[in-house]
């Protein structure tokens, strides 16, 4: 019967061959090819980004300025969406049906399986109702985000705003992904890395339908989000608000600095805007409205506007003259008033004048003579000009100061070569550039630079780089903000100049109207010619005279004279800061200043 018994070996052979083939194949799959492990991980892991809350911003007196408020994004996973009541959802979300449909369409184009944002930044109020109804809408879920919220309407330019990250930032910094928020201006931009914190990742297992099944490794691999660091600004929000109030219906800028530290106490750029307009879904439309406003409310004049310094610059020129010893405290120059050549004097005062008087009266001929002497001291006018220019640079004119703001303008302080180009080398002299003597011509100074220049005078020779943040949680502020920078003028030359500035506010001085009772304020008016309309009113001042606590520059565009608007406004800010109130006999001045409307470029002389 068992004739074919040997055939069992063939059968066993077939069995064994198949078994062997399987083992070889399994060996290859499981031990030789590592790609399957990667596939398996990609299959089941969903990484959910945890967005940290941005750091808070306080003012110098620890008043909360910027904080966060929850907002919610409505997410959609197209493949999980079942039929739903579109009209009802649109009503809940306050969007139109077209918006919803285009949103769903682009989400589908991105991925049918992965979540994408359908509606951004739903307010907590709308979210409350939405959340209750969300069970009716399969395939939709929400993701929480935090948005900036501002406790005041003031200091918009200082605080800046936060917006969605742009293409370039994503390209340059791998931290950012599409849809992330980033500081776009002000403190929020300058301290972005500290304020943003660090995004975290939560890893979840998902099943084949992309539904979350639980945490991966019990959250062992998760990276918790790190809340952003809080920062304390140098701003005094009350002073800021007061300054902004004085600037209503005006264009211009105020920068107030604490000379002993370089901390910016207030920084106004008028007109401004309500920082609350730059958040939530209305941001886009508000932004374009602000952008197209002819008064340029988004333009930060304090940092970017370049004005001729006018007569305020005379103080520096006299200091240079003293340091270069081309004049002395006793030098007298005569003034022929409006008949003076080459620069006429518009200020009616006695003649001759010395240093103190020249500053008090803002005498143009005195400055012309001083300036000419400086330039002529050296072999060539060009050498003299370069010496003069070095002094200006040491006062922070014509260069970026290096503050923490990311968008400083460097102003303008022409190089020798600039004049060589225009007039030809050796073909220009003091007369050619005489406007520089009185702070006109090619000079351009930002309000920040002027405030800093004033702080140097207040400090009798040095400055700290102006900055807007004084403390960062668990972190030192930049060391450069704690280093003294010296102007190239010896301390001894400051006193007569300061005396002149003090006397400018005495009865008979150029800004007598702005005198503050019981406070020795030293100031210098200025008027910058403006081809587009009335001249700009300029004032720089510091107070008190000894141990100054505040130094500031005030520009009022189209304010006609330095003493007309800038000086009174500066005096009110100083008084408010130093005494916390305005004395009763100056209330009328405060009123006049607040009510003045200078938005028209042409003002009566």
């Amino acid at each position, binding site marked *: 019967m068992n004739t074919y018994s040997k055939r069992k070996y063939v*059968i066993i052979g077939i069995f064994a061959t*198949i078994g062997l083939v399987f083992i070889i*194949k399994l060996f290859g799959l499981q031990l030789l090819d590592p790609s*399957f492990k990667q596939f398996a991980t990609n299959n*089941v892991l969903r990484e959910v980004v945890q967005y940290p809350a941005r750091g808070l911003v306080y003012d110098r007196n620890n008043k909360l300025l910027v904080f966060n408020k929850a907002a919610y994004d409505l997410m959609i996973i197209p493949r999980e969406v079942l039929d739903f009541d579109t009209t009802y959802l649109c009503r809940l979300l306050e969007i139109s049906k077209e918006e919803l449909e285009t949103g769903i369409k682009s989400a589908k184009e991105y991925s049918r399986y992965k979540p994408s944002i359908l509606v951004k930044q739903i307010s907590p109020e709308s979210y409350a109702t939405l959340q209750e109804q969300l069970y009716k809408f399969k395939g939709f879920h929400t993701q929480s985000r935090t948005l900036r919220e501002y406790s005041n309407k003031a200091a918009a330019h200082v605080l800046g705003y936060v917006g969605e990250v742009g293409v370039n930032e994503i390209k340059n910094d791998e931290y950012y992904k599409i849809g992330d928020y980033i500081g776009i201006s002000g403190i929020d931009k300058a301290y972005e890395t500290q304020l943003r914190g660090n995004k975290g990742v939560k890893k979840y297992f998902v099943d084949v339908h992309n539904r979350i099944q639980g945490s991966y490794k019990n959250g062992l691999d998760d990276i918790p989000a790190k809340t952003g660091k809080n920062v304390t600004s140098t701003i005094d929000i009350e002073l800021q608000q007061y300054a902004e109030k004085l600037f209503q219906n005006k264009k211009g800028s105020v920068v107030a600095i604490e000379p002993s530290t370089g901390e910016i106490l207030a920084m106004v750029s008028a007109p401004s805007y309500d920082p609350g307009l730059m958040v939530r879904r209305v941001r886009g439309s508000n932004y374009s409205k602000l952008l197209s406003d002819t008064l340029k409310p988004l333009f930060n004049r304090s940092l970017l506007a370049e004005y001729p310094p006018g007569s305020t610059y005379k103080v520096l020129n006299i200091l240079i003259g003293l340091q270069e010893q081309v004049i002395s405290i006793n030098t007298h120059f005569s003034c022929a008033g409006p008949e003076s050549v080459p620069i006429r004097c518009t200020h009616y005062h006695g003649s001759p004048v010395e240093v103190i008087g020249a500053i008090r009266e803002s005498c143009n001929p005195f400055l012309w003579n001083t300036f000419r002497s400086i330039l002529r001291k050296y072999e060539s006018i060009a050498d003299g000009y370069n010496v003069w220019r070095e002094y200006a640079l040491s006062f922070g004119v014509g260069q970026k100061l290096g503050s923490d703001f990311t968008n400083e303008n460097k102003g303008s302080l022409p190089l020798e070569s600039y004049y060589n180009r225009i007039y030809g080398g050796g073909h220009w002299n003091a007369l050619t550039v005489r406007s520089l003597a009185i702070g006109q011509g090619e000079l351009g100074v930002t309000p920040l630079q002027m405030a800093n220049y004033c702080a140097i005078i207040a400090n009798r020779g040095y400055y700290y780089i102006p900055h807007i943040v004084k403390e960062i949680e668990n972190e030192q502020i930049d060391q450069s903000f704690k280093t003294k920078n010296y102007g190239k003028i010896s301390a001894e030359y400051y006193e007569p100049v300061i005396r002149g500035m003090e006397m400018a506010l005495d009865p008979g001085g150029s800004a007598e109207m702005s005198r503050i009772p019981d406070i020795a304020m030293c100031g210098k008016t200025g008027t910058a010619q403006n081809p587009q309309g009335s001249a700009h009113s300029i004032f720089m001042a510091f107070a008190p005279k000894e141990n100054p606590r505040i130094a500031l520059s005030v520009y009022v565009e189209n304010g006609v004279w330095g003493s007309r608007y800038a000086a009174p406004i500066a005096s009110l800010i100083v008084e408010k800061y130093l005494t916390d109130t305005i004395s009763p006999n100056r209330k009328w001045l405060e009123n006049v200043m607040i009510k003045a409307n200078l938005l028209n470029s042409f003002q009566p002389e």
Partner: protein
Amino acid sequence: MPRRNNVWVNIDWLTVSLYLMLVFLGWINIYASVYSEEHQSIFDLSQRYGKQIIWISAALIIGFVILLIETNFYVFFSYIIFGILVFLLILVLFVGTEINGAKSWFILGDFGIQPSEFAKFATGLALARYMSSFGFKIQRFKSLITIVVIVFLPTILILLQNDTGSALVYFSFILVLYREGLSGVVLFFALLVTLLFVFALLFSNFIMMVVLLLAAIFAFLILNPRIKQFVIILSIFIVSIALFYVLNLILKTNYKIAEVLVVSSIIGGAVVLGYSIRKKFKNYIIVALVFLGSVLFSISVDYAFNNMLAPHHQARINELLGIQSDLLGAGYNVNQSKIAIGSGGLWGKGYLQGTQTKFNFVPEQSTDFIFCTVGEEWGFAGTFTVVVLFLFLLIRLVFLSERQRSGFSRIYGYTVAVILFFHFMVNIGMTIGLMPVIGIPLPFFSYGGSSLWSFTILLFVFIQLDASRLENLAN
């Protein structure tokens, strides 16, 4: 009583142990594949592992009962059992319930029974009975026809249920027939046809022709070392190819080189065949015939595949052969299955730590794709163990069959072995991408009452036959 003792003493405990091991491994992997943190009780009857415990307990009782039944019962009732199953297969066509496209289930309350699962065992019995009967000779036409009827009756009925996978199992009986005397040539041709089918789809006509030509030349060389005849035949062949080629050039018909090769191969083959017949070279005739047949077969497969198959069938076959990979379509299951197994590495991700299987990336992970769970959670160590356990069992069954004194027991033993083998080959082969996705369970492993019970019955009947092999045969 002594006879009864005999049975218990003579049971092949090795086979029983292998069986218990596979069932146990199967259950812990079913548990892992449907495991979730909400349902932790292993007796939770709402979960498949809970139900499987019931199926296993019942299977053990069934196995025990089978061992108690006398051997004669199977011999006497084999045709009747076969008849009942055929009846049930017909009945299910009318009153059955359709699950996953196959109308092969009787649903009684919560439980479903698949008669096709039990039909394998019944067919095995009937085949054993018929082939061991007096006067059976496989070479006889009548015997062969009867066998074909016994095997193809259930096959066709199951095909009618639209359960192709289960129907294909019956082709494995060719190995039993081979063991019982079916010519090796038939087995050879079966293998040849399968290989040609695969290669014809896998490779271009040109390569196929070159390979076949080389194979034919090789065969000539082996069969007849006489150089003279070989040279004559080779020259006839080359001349006919050359002639056709030149003719093609002259007539400028622009046939492609593959087409030229095909036509000239056929012509050359035919000429050689004619020459061999005239000279009565038997071996040459065979080689020439096989060659011609192979050429024609591969061309027609290629043609049939491209022109006659429905696109989704083409897709499945293409996927299997790695011709086209559409990972989100037809290839999805196999791809996910390979990812699951491949991600297991040497030692696996650890028990209950599988992510592919637990989160439903692998379809049917507790039934047809249970091997993925083994691969993912136990790694190569696990898959190697399972493959080796099955091989052990299969080879053990062959040895047990060979030691039977009765033809009935031996033949039945072989049917058990080849049925298990076919399932093992197709199921594991499909999870690792070596076989097309044919939904048949892995014996003892996969979830499901019908399949576990039917395999238990299949195996335990043989264990019983083996245990009582020393008794006097009833017939």
